[in-house]
């Protein structure tokens, strides 16, 4: 499951999710899409 939220909320969200038993990774971030680029890239 992937969750996207405002950067200012990320830490609180991670703490909240972990408090309910989830293991959470910060997977990446959203950027402005370069022209012609794929919408998801893995680096």
């Amino acid at each position, binding site marked *: 499951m*992937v969750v996207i939220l405002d950067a200012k909320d990320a830490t609180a969200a991670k703490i909240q999710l972990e408090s309910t038993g989830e293991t959470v*990774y910060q997977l990446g971030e959203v*950027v402005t899409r370069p022209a012609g680029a794929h919408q998801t890239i893995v680096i």
Partner: protein
Amino acid sequence: MSDQISSKSQGLSYRDAGVDMEAGDALVERIKPLAKKTMREGVLAGIGGFGALFEVPKRYKEPVLVSGTDGVGTKLKLAFDWNRHDTVGQDLVAMSVNDILVQGAEPLFFLDYFACGKLSVDTAATVIGGVALGCELAGCALIGGETAEMPGMYPEGEYDLAGFAVGAVEKSTMITGATIQSGDVILSLASSGAHLNGYSLVRKIIERAGAKSTDDFHGRSLSDVVMAPTRIYVKSMLALMSKIKVKGMAHITGGGLVENVPRVLPENTQAVLHRDAWQLPQLFQWLQKEGGVQDAEMHRVLIVELVWL
């Protein structure tokens, strides 16, 4: 000829045709207490009626109904081969409730469809017990379903499963991804295993490795690891959404991150994911090694590495 006449004179029953209605009735009695445990606010009438009745909770001001349907796929083949039927029911529920969850919906009720050639009450009750457990984990009512015994339609010992979830979300809090913008953060919640993804490849690798369900896998049986039921994220995510604004969610199923994350992104945005942000599970490492799957092929297919989250 006289034998044929004698045989015909005896007449045929539905049981002679392969349908055991008593077994069906026995299954219903086994299911009822399981379904009862899932009852919740809104259920007006559940199993037993021609249709199930559900009243959308009045706390919703402008409820939008969100629905989803799915099956279990080829993980069922392992359930048959390993006689392991206790987890696929939860898998079934997870697929639909996790799908509707990503739009912000609270799952309200679920219906299942179990189809087989010859009904084994014990097997079906085990499968539907998993469905009921999945509904409990998702907080939705198992409000109805269908068990179809259809002689000749499925090989002996096999069955198919489908399910349907309906949920509700307040119109003003629907999650559409429309507000996602540059600078937003992408979190992922760990899976319980392979969920339902890539099982045609998983089965092929297990076959090539000559592995058995009882083989030890880091202190657990291979069966326990491979058949681990799909994680249901409903309660943890609803708790999060009640406190923090979530802009977008993606249920990572077939196609992995690369195909599923864009489904919630605005056209002018791009998700940049960092490969070192997640740990490669032991099962995946084993599958890659035993299958001799090259990195390039893994990355091309994606369905293994990028769905383990």
